[in-house]
């Protein structure tokens, strides 16, 4: 579905990484780890067309990312639910409308009704539904971001540190949601530092662990 082949990326200076390859097979569950600043977020951005690789090829749903039109990029993003490390909300809108935004921009507003309530209950934000993102705690924002990422029931879910600010119990709860979605056939890629989270996932599902370090990618990492 998403394929990076010998990809390099640089923000202008030296390459952050080079000759890096990654495949997201349909239905797979993968973790991406590595030290802070190694390029995890950057790599994820390549996967949803937010950045274009400096060299190498990125294939998104069978299409070369470099040749996508702006409308193609929009359509591609509708198939990928993303939890951004910095959340990215519309600060003037209440939580419900933020979470439903992906449905709204793709003209599927009618699907929001029941889904939204269930989803907010699952991530424990029913009470905060009418609050705006700046009024939420860091962990609440992350939970909202996860809800927004999965509301359209996308083929691929990419989560950048989705549990960075939440307690262990909530982390497990959020991960369980992602595992459930994976069982329903969704492809999941999670960037995290949290080894406990990876261990917990591995006890429930077949999960592959990738590590990016010093500009190289290790696959099948054992903890």
């Amino acid at each position, binding site marked *: 579905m998403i394929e990076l082949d010998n990809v390099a990326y640089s923000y202008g200076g030296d390459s952050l990484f080079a000759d890096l390859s990654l495949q997201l097979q349909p239905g797979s569950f993968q973790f991406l780890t590595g030290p802070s600043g190694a390029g995890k977020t950057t790599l994820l951005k390549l996967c949803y067309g*937010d950045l274009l690789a400096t060299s190498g090829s990125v294939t998104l749903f069978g299409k070369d990312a470099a040749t996508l039109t*702006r*409308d193609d*990029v*929009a*359509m591609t*993003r*509708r198939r990928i639910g*993303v939890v*951004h490390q910095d959340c*990215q*909300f*519309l600060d*003037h*809108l209440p939580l419900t*409308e933020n979470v439903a*935004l*992906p449905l*709204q*921009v*793709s003209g599927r*507003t009618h699907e929001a009704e029941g889904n939204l309530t269930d989803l907010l209950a699952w991530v424990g934000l029913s009470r905060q539904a009418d609050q705006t993102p700046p009024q939420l705690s860091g962990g609440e924002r992350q939970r909202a971001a996860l809800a*927004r990422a999965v509301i359209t029931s996308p083929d691929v879910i990419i989560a950048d540190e989705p549990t960075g600010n939440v307690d262990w119990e909530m982390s497990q709860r959020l991960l369980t949601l992602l595992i459930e979605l994976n069982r329903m056939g969704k492809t999941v890629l999670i960037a995290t530092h949290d080894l406990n989270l990876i261990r917990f996932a591995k006890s429930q599902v077949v999960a592959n662990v990738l590590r990016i370090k010093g500009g190289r990618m290790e696959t099948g990492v054992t903890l």
Partner: protein
Amino acid sequence: MQLWALLQGDRHADRAVPPTGFTARLTVFTAGAMAFLAVFALALSVATGRLADRWAAELAQTSTLRISAPVGEVDAQVTAALRVLETTPGVGSARSLTEEEERALLEPWFGPDLPVDSLRLPQLIEIVETGDGYDASGLRARLQAEVPGAVLDDHTRWRAPLIDAATRLRTLGWIALLLIGGAVAAMITLAAQSALSANAQVIRVMRLVGARDAYIARAFVRRFTLRAGAGALIGTALGLLAVALMPDGDTGGFLTGLGFSGTGWLLPLLIPPLAAAVAFFATRAAALRTLRSQA
């Protein structure tokens, strides 16, 4: 982008872009002020056009020949003058006015009881011109030789430069309208651009969740189109009121003639939809250009 869909609007797309009170008020004000000016430019064009047409028609119509001669010679001179006029190129017809017609002409000045009989009035000959008219100085020379008592009074001729001026003024009015339209487009573009850059983060979030450029642009386009339309509506209404309150006069004077007549009053009603259309295209161009330049 369908206009109808635009007017109906998408509540969610509209809400996604936060309200910007300041640019909103500026846009409404600008559109209103420009519409107000447009009403006057339009009134100027319409009125000067009407004036030019009327003057031109009067000019084309007639001039008069006045014959003052000792009593016994009047008839002979009239006959001679008519003969000269018959053979003058550019003269369609010529006839002497009857006593009643002369009385009617003088009535406004001297009242109905004027004893025409006891006055020695000059005999008037009305000349109706054809095409571009006759050569006035040539005719004068011939009349001087053959009809010594004749004075050619081509009184409407002095209006020729005025007609030119009126026609020019009408053109200037139209140019002013075009400039006003251009200024509205420019100002709306600036306002839209400032709204777009103020909302860069909103646009980024919408792009990230899969919004297409057209969807994002629509929220801005709708906003500015409605604002410009509403502002122009107010400005047009005030402008029309001002024109309607202009002192009225039937003298055909230029200043009192500034205004609309009959169905002409419908013409300014085109201003608000035109302003909205200008805003629509200006904002859409600005939005799509800005969006394309962003990641």
